[in-house]
């Protein structure tokens, strides 16, 4: 039975379970829902959950396990020499699967009957061209061995699918029956359902942890490799970033990159935070509902413009402008790409991160607090500064952190706006670069991928990860310290 059908049936059973569970609950209470422990819908949902969840769980597991099992069975039919020829077992299996699928397609299109498909022989038929006719392209001629395997593969798949259908449907029915039997007026259906929901919530939050684990693991190994090739203290304390194609001459010091990252991010935040915060305050506190309802989405578009547009804007417009009107008259250099350029343009991109989120949070501060302050003769700005912002602080800090995070992670604007030169310099009109740019650069460059010049990307990524972790801990601490909880 096709997967879709199984799903539909299980879902139908779920719906039926809902109705039945509800009915039974009502019946057990003699039609008076007040006697029930929970709302009737919870009883329904409870039965649904028991019907659907185990069945789908098994279905998912089955779908993952069956191919593995079948593959093991089928590859045992293929001689080692064939595998040797093809390079790997996986490739042979790819071929087998493709032939099997081809047969399937051929049957669907009526080019073969299923018997023919089962009995087709390479000796008598050119399988590749037969399948080619129905639009299934094969990489090469089909060997008898592969064809046999493919036929066996089909057979096993058919059996497997049948078994799966039966097992899943039985399980669904059992679940339904079990939960149905348990449905009774005193049964704590709401608690069960809420437990199920809570499980989902917990699972959802573990994804964040798994992602972190995944990120760390996917970089740890290569970072380790890097430090075997390149001394750690040179990396962490080196003030020179100059990779070359001759590994032994490379200087891969972290500090200039870190400095650039900090410098650019700070400038970007110096632009984005005041503008964003003021915009948020204006929209939430002063602007009329109409102004707000168009200004807010408009500013949000800034977050959606691809960063390459900002990059080009920095390169073509802002860079020369800053150079001609600030850097050169001030004698601060003649570079058109500079930390300043990238910072300012990135700041513009980050405005909506600060403004939109803060606007929502400010808007959520209860009106009674504003009234309290106005009633004491405070001006609107005093109210905002002394009552509303402190009350909205945690959310605003969250918004700023988000903006800072984007600033740290941005590449395109830095590449085009700040240049590619790693440099430890105080002059904001000098070209510099950031850790993220170099992660992308070294990863997507033309260097030897197992050389320190490429592997350094992973070390940079992991280091950045640790550093931002530290910053976040600090931010959390600050928020805890100054948080004001209104009622």
């Amino acid at each position, binding site marked *: 039975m096709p997967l879709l059908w199984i799903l539909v049936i299980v879902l139908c059973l779920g719906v039926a379970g809902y109705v039945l569970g509800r009915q039974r609950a009502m019946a057990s209470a003699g039609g008076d829902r007040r006697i029930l422990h929970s709302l009737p819908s919870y009883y329904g949902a409870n039965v649904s959950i028991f019907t659907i969840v185990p069945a789908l769980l098994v279905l998912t597991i089955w779908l993952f396990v069956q191919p593995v099992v079948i593959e093991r069975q089928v590859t045992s039919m293929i001689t080692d020499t064939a595998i040797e020829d093809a390079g790997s077992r996986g490739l042979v299996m790819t071929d087998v699967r493709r032939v099997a699928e081809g047969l399937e397609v051929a049957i669907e299109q009526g080019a073969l009957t299923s018997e023919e498909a089962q009995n087709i022989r390479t000796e008598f038929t050119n399988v590749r061209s037969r399948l080619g006719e129905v639009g299934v392209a094969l990489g090469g001629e089909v060997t008898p061995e592969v064809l046999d395997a493919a036929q066996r593969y089909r057979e096993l798949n058919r059996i497997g699918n049948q078994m799966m259908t039966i097992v899943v449907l039985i399980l669904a029915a059992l679940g339904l029956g079990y939960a149905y039997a348990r449905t009774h007026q005193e049964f704590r259906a709401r608690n069960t359902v809420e437990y199920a929901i809570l499980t989902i919530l917990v699972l959802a939050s573990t994804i964040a942890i798994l992602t972190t684990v995944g990120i760390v693991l996917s970089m740890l190994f290569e970072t380790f490799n890097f430090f075997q090739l390149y001394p750690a203290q040179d990396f962490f304390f080196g003030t020179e970033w100059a990779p070359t194609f001759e590994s032994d001459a490379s200087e891969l010091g972290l500090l200039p990159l870190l400095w650039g990252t900090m410098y650019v991010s700070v400038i970007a935040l110096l632009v984005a935070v005041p503008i964003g915060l003021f*915009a948020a305050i204006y929209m939430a506190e002063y602007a009329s509902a109409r102004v707000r309802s168009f200004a807010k*989405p408009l500013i949000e*578009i800034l977050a959606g413009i691809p960063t390459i547009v900002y990059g080009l804007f920095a390169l073509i417009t802002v860079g020369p402008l800053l150079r001609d009107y600030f850097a050169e008259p001030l004698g601060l250099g003649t570079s058109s790409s500079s930390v300043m350029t990238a910072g300012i343009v990135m700041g513009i991109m980050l405005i*909506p991160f600060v403004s939109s989120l803060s606007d*929502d949070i400010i808007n959520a501060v209860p009106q009674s607090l504003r009234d309290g302050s106005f009633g004491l003769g405070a001006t609107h700005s005093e109210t905002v500064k002394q009552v509303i912002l402190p009350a909205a602080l*945690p959310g605003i800090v969250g918004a700023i952190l988000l903006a800072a*995070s984007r600033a740290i992670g941005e590449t395109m604007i830095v590449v085009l706006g700040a240049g590619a030169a790693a440099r430890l310099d105080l002059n904001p009109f000098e070209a510099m670069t950031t850790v993220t740019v170099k992660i992308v650069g070294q990863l997507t460059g033309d260097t030897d991928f197992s050389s320190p010049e490429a592997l350094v990307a992973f070390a940079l990524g992991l280091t950045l990860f640790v550093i931002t972790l530290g*910053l976040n801990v600090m931010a959390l601490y600050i928020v805890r310290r100054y948080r004001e909880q209104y009622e």
Partner: protein
Amino acid sequence: MSDATAPSPTAPTSSLLKQDDRTRRRNRAETRFRAYGMAAVIVGILALVLLLTSILSNGLSSFRQTFITFPVTLAEERLDPQGNRNPEEMARVTTFGYAPLLGQSFVEHVQSMGIETDLGPREMAAMISDEAPGQLRAMVLANPDIVGETITLELLAGGRIDGFFKGRVTMASAERDNNVSPEQLLLAEALREQGVMDTRFNWDFITAPDASGQRPEAAGLGVAILGSFYMMIVVLVLALPIGVAASIYLEEFAPKNRFTDLIEVNISNLAAVPSIVFGILGLAIFINFAGLPQSAPIVGGLVLTLMTLPTIIIATRASLRAVPPSIRSAALGLGASKMQSVFHHVLPLAAPGILTGTIIGLAQALGETAPLLLIGMVAFVREYPSAPPDGFFDPASALPVQVYNWTQRSDPAFVERASGAIIVLLVFLIFMNAVAILLRRRFERRW
């Protein structure tokens, strides 16, 4: 309370209409503050206008394209030497066989119109897009019977000719340009007067797949739009519910201890992970470990989901936290379970913030290229992905990828197309977010 030495009241009843110094000072501060706010909003909108004008002025022209219309003789001896109209045999004639046919017909047509030109046949043929032979071949193979006939075709003009009509290429620049000559432009001018060439709206820009660097005029966004669409479906379907669910757990249910602090810090930290690192992760987990196909929107969508999650979670948690506890108490006091109080009362009140997080998160996900690099979606893809659900597993590119690729191409014609792609991307973004923006407006309220 008989203390009579109260702080002496300031000057007896001052006029309301005359402000005292302090009030004036405070009011000036107030005016300044308000002006800062307005200035901030204006700066934001101005920046947007500035960027949009540059995008629009560069990119609007990409929605128009120059076409050449002329009769083509489908010579049998070239296209079907055997003459039995067997598509399989006819397929042996490659596009290299079709190209001269087109050139020849074009030259003949120009001559028949009596237009004088110094151009040789090769240079004249070069005015037709390289895309044309492929189109003609596909047409002939689909309908072999037209071989031998003369049919009038509407074909794309080459990129430089098109650029000439859009003002990108001028006689002066053509002087120095190795790829086009002033004579070609003169001929194009003449042909336009004759109505053979004209520039008009080009749906293909939106529907056609990408084309190689030699054919800027044929490059379209079809595959990219589909790819982005599929990815955004995945992101929306996963990131929003997972993000909201995780936030609810962390903010409302999780015990407050070291461990949940760790998760909290961890999530904000994930937001600071450079997006390409998510690509590394996606390659390791989804492709190498889970065996999902490369260049597929499903993988792209999953990676972008992981990338967007922190944004949504941070926004959602902040707005959950902003809901006054008295609302929760009210519900709990009525015998609502915590779950009910959250879903019935807190969540609706936090909805604006959640939607904002979603808007910003999706905007970011829609515009991101770097994480797609490693999972194979920053690619040249010409085959359309099929309809869902299979389409999620077919190779596709994405809108920002197309922008990124096109800005790297050497032919200047791609600059215009990249800006055009950005316009499409922004329109896509606005459509995608319109629902969220409208919903958010509905949920906004003060209490």
